[in-house]
């Protein structure tokens, strides 16, 4: 069911700047859970942007389940994105719409019928504790609440691949733990997961393999290093 992800010799630079990623290769097997870490500006978001086909790499290929996705047609790009649930660092919510509508969006895009839709949304909103505010507009939510809506949206359709960019940066500790447990439950269902974070406490609390972006390269680091350095 899940999908393995492979980056091969990937180089990415933004216009007129030094490359952010230089000849990066790594492989994430089906159903694995990885953290992605690195200092501010290291390139974590850039990795996600490449995986979501929001940017084209300068060189190299990205394989999803063995298929090269870097040169898909617009229609196939849409299909590619539909199998990925992603929590963006800046949330990317429709500010004018209700919480409910935002969470329903990927389901609507995938053509779900209203009946089937409602149950799923209900469940996700319960899980992040926003069920009783489902009619509120996203515009008036607090930073943490927006992040929760974004997480609920990414989880809504039981994705095969789940990416989260700093999903707990605006959450208090207990909420962060609840969210991590939701992600782990999804992972246990067979989903391939990558979570970018700065929060070493999070990594300590929920152990998983960790990729570190440093000097334009991605290295797998051992958690024990973090433990000792913390």
């Amino acid at each position, binding site marked *: 069911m899940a999908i393995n992800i492979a980056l091969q010799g990937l180089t990415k630079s933004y216009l007129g700047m030094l490359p952010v990623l230089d000849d990066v290769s790594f492989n994430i097997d089906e159903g694995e859970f990885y953290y992605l870490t690195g200092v501010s500006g290291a390139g974590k978001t850039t990795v996600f942007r490449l995986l979501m*086909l*929001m940017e084209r790499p300068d060189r190299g290929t990205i394989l999803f389940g063995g298929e090269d996705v870097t040169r898909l047609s617009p229609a196939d790009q849409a299909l590619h*994105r*539909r199998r990925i649930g992603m929590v963006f660092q800046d949330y990317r919510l429709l500010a*004018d719409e209700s919480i409910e509508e935002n969470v329903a*969006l990927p389901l*609507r895009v*995938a053509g779900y019928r209203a009946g089937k839709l409602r149950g799923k949304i209900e469940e996700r909103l319960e899980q992040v504790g926003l069920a009783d505010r489902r009619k509120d507009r996203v515009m008036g939510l607090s930073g943490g609440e927006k992040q929760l809506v974004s997480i609920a949206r990414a989880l809504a359709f039981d994705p095969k691949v789940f990416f989260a960019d700093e999903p707990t940066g605006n959450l208090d500790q207990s909420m962060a733990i609840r969210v991590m447990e939701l992600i782990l439950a999804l992972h246990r269902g067979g989903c391939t997961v990558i979570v970018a974070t700065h929060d070493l406490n999070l990594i300590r609390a929920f152990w998983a393999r960790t990729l570190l972006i440093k000097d334009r390269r991605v290295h797998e680091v051992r958690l024990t290093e973090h433990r000792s350095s913390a």
Partner: protein
Amino acid sequence: MYLRYGIPRAIRGLRTNWRANINNVLILAASLGVLGMIVLLYLNIVHFSEAWLSDTTISLFLEPDLDPAARRALFGQVQHHPLVKAAVMVTPQDGLRELAEKLGADHAMLLGAGTEGLPYTIDVTVFLNYRDRIDLLANRFEALTGVADVIYTQRLLEEVKLFFVLLKGIGWFFITLMVLSFFLIVSHATKLSLYARRDEIGILSLVGATRNFICSSFVVEGILIALAGCLLAAGIVWMCYQLLISGFSWNEITQAIKAQTVFFPLPALGAALGAAALLGAMSSHFAVTRLLKELEP
């Protein structure tokens, strides 16, 4: 499937940004209204010029020494010419009286001059569509035996005609210019209102929506705005028309004009509505597609 998302979303969108959308409708209605008024003015000018120029007649002055039988034969010949709508034989007395009436108050003076030596005339009205060939026709008539002279256009009428031709040309020019600028306005307004919502388009694309899916709600919105603007414009033009012609009652001439003015026929209004809807749909589709292209890597 697209419409199941597109229509409710479009209606929500219209409601949320209602102020901007009312503005959009107003601006559309204003520019369409001006366009409509100009087209209407143009139509009326053409209509009047047709009516006015259709007065153009040919007068055949017959030889004074023609006997009644020859006169009648000639009259028959002229009357049955395929381009001739109507022909009237005018006696010298009637001719002088008509002339005097045309000139106004000095008829008494002319009538005193006597009719000896004055000729019979045949006044010919030509079918409207053949007015351009009036020269040929006049020459043909002049060649007939028994015809002394042919007059067929007064100078002033000629000038008026020229004036209408010019007005017609300028009218076309303007209408083209206005249709272009109208198109520009619509596509600009669409682009700007999409620009303000480009985040939304980006988000839809990121959760895997196809182009058609993303377009659907914007296209529906575009159609609704265009239709509303068009209907309002039709209302405005109708009101302006009524206002203008209601002013036309200060004497018989203006009342004659009033009786003859034309308004758009219903099918034309329907076609305009359809065209507006199409334009609204097309320009929002175009704008969305271009924004999506920009968002692509």
